[in-house]
């Protein structure tokens, strides 16, 4: 008998988009930023510094393939050939393995630059919660990094940690935030830091009679604690913005907001795009200085 396939609760929505108002034939510089993260990859295509197209998808087991897939996905809804790109910068965990990149830039620099574009020049503190790391970045009005702190050693508080929990509790990852508020009273946060031990603790809580939603709340709260402690170490100066996939999880963000006492800035863009946008903008700056690709 064939075993029934367990639904992939952790799987989030992959998206691509194109700006219908931009005619790429009339643009001077087309630049691309490819952010190959440990869990997700984004390709952002900008036309003279305006958003033209993007693709956001899961990273595969191979970085070069993930970069190729992301750029293909980004260009899918356009009629522009990839060869039209004037400059391409790779960033993220897999940045040295982006075959079409002219150079690579660290994701810290790219996130600060990208946040400056997405939220405006007032942003001074950028919190990026990605698949396998948490970055707290301080930057100036140009989006230049002035200080940062990063945790990439431990899954506690990261997107991957949340994926593990959505799988454990069989709750689709997009519903975690809302469901974590469908509770009568706020439970005590999960106390284990390590995700491996937090899983056992959560199983114990379920056995004690807590509902799935209450366990989700207890874990979202633990995540918020963890993220807050990293943010505190670098210091939070307004304005404050959150990027990365976790920005979409209200369960964690609303609890984090309460701890900080600050309202995060809002953006029209997908929060996972910050690194890719920053990379594309660095590419544009190089082109404008005449350091673009020689064609």
């Amino acid at each position, binding site marked *: 008998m064939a075993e029934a396939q367990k639904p992939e609760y952790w799987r989030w929505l992959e998206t691509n988009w194109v700006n219908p108002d931009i005619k790429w034939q009339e643009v001077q510089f087309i630049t691309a930023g490819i952010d190959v993260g*440990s869990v997700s990859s984004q390709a952002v295509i900008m036309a003279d510094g305006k958003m033209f197209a993007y693709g956001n998808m899961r990273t595969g*087991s*191979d970085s070069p393939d993930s970069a190729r897939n992301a750029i293909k996905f980004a260009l899918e809804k356009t009629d522009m050939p990839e060869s039209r790109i004037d400059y391409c910068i790779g960033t993220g965990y897999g940045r040295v393995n982006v075959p079409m990149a002219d150079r690579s830039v660290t994701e810290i620099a790219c996130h600060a630059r990208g946040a400056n574009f997405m939220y405006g020049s007032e942003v001074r503190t950028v919190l990026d919660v990605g698949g*396998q790391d948490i970055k707290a970045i301080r930057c100036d009005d140009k989006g230049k990094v002035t200080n940062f702190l990063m945790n990439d*050693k*431990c*899954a506690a508080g990261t997107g*991957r*940690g949340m994926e*593990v929990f959505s799988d454990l509790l069989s709750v689709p990852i997009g519903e975690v935030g809302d469901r974590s508020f469908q509770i009568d009273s706020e439970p005590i946060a999960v106390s*284990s*830091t*390590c*995700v*491996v*031990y937090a899983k056992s603790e959560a199983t*114990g809580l379920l*056995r004690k009679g807590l509902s799935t939603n209450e366990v989700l709340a207890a874990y979202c709260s633990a995540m918020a604690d963890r993220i807050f402690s990293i943010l505190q170490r670098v210091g939070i100066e307004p304005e404050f913005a959150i990027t990365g996939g976790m920005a979409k999880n209200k369960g964690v963000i609303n609890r984090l907001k309460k701890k900080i006492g600050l309202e995060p800035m809002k953006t029209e863009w997908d929060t996972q795009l910050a690194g890719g946008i920053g990379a594309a903008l660095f590419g544009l700056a190089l082109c404008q200085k005449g350091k673009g690709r020689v064609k």
Partner: protein
Amino acid sequence: MITAGIDCGAKNTKTVILNDGEIVGRGSVPTGFDQAAAVKKSLEMALKNAGIKKDQLERIGGTGSGAKSIKQADVAVNEIKAIAAAANFFFPSAKTVADVGAEEGRAAKVDEKGNVVDFAMNEKCAAGAGAFIEAMSRALETPLEQLGPLALSSNNAIPMNAQCTIFAESEVVGLIHAKTEKKDISKAIHDSIAARIVSMIRRIGVNPDVVMMGGVAYNPGFVAALQRELGLEKVYIPDMPEYGAAVGAAAVAAKIGK
């Protein structure tokens, strides 16, 4: 004098019966969710194994993360004290002892009498505990008992980037996709946990002789990696190393009043 030592751990509860410095009985059961029941069962098992009655016991020492559930204990023995006493019991020349269980790792610097001079612990992170190897055995789809021998058959040192167990799971899956040989991945897994344990031991200093206890010491792949990482030809391992802390608790219980 006959004493018992009970170690209620995260995964298993172990009991040892000690008669005038000699191990005469052992019992081990999975801890499960009812720690008190596991304690009772493992004690009964050890008594039966030793062929003695409970009222022949002079004293019972209790230790481990679930020590509070050992109602039978006359004396609560701190886990660090227990492993130090055990190291001295098995190897009087021991200066350093490490004990790695399912969810915790600890190391102690000991004097020639088995007293604790200094110690270090990890109870926060699975990357330095047995839980790491278990998770890796699942990711590699290789039974736990085959993982160590498999690592020994590899001469390739491939680095693991991930420290975290959760990230290492994804990394192992990635390595499998990249067609890396299982034996090489297995070696990388053992190198990784050995590096974590050694960094804990280094906090108190590496002073030979080094004794390794806890269930993880059964794994030959881990022991080889540990020796490599420590730069030592030999790390001393007692028979049935998972009973280490229980032996220590029984030894401490026997010393009281002396």
